[in-house]
């Protein structure tokens, strides 16, 4: 085995792995290294990374919960909006119906009043027409009677006023 020539200008004689004179050195430094790494990991690095990961997990969970809550709120808000909308619609419909009823009532009253006025006027007109017609009829009978009496006189007869009047009335009744 090549123990005698190891330090000779970095040239390997045989396998350096089997040069047992360097084993204590390697083992010593390896143990030192492992202990240092173990302490660094177990005291500092691993707890820290574990805490960060746990933090992140809880943050994500919280955020998800908050998002869920916000979503619920949004849904509730939408529902409230829809409710309000529906309420407003029914209210509006009610108001419209009321207004319609009011207008209808006014309209009915106005119509009734107008009808009454119209019928009153019509009756009045009828009355005056009747009066005029009566007047006219009376005037016609008068004229007819006078004319008939004049005609009878002109023809040389002597006219009995009552007889002429009865004849004219007879003819006017037609």
């Amino acid at each position, binding site marked *: *085995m090549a123990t005698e020539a190891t330090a000779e200008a970095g040239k*390997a004689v*045989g*396998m350096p792995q*089997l040069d047992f004179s360097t084993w204590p050195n390697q083992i010593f430094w390896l143990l030192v290294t492992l202990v240092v790494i173990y302490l660094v990991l177990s005291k500092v690095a691993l707890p820290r990374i574990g805490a960060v990961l746990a933090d992140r997990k809880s943050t994500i969970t919280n955020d998800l919960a908050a998002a869920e809550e916000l979503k619920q709120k949004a849904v509730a808000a939408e529902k409230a909006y829809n409710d309000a909308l529906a309420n407003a619609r029914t209210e509006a419909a009610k108001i419209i119906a009321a207004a319609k009823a009011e207008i209808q009532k006014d309209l009915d009253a106005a119509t009734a009043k107008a009808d009454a006025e119209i019928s009153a006027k019509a009756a009045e007109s009828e009355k005056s027409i009747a009066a005029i017609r009566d007047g006219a009829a009376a005037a016609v009978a008068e004229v007819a009677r006078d004319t008939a009496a004049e005609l009878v006189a002109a023809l040389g007869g002597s006219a009995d006023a009552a007889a002429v009047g009865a004849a004219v009335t007879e003819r006017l009744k037609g």
Partner: protein
Amino acid sequence: MEGELALLGKYIGAGLATIGLGGAGIGVGHVAGNFLAGALRNPSAAAGQTATLFVGIAFAEALGIFSFLIALLLMFAV
């Protein structure tokens, strides 16, 4: 002359020892190939078995490394 003969034997032995690496190659290929065949049959189960795959490859390879070590020992340490 005797030294020459010993050297000859050393080199021949080292060369012969490397044949063992072929066995390791066959073994690793077998493991990986069978894993692939199984993985293609049931891809959903394959992901969970990669650890087993690597352990199997490691075991198959270790024996090849042993023969490589013998070759190195013959070349450099004997």
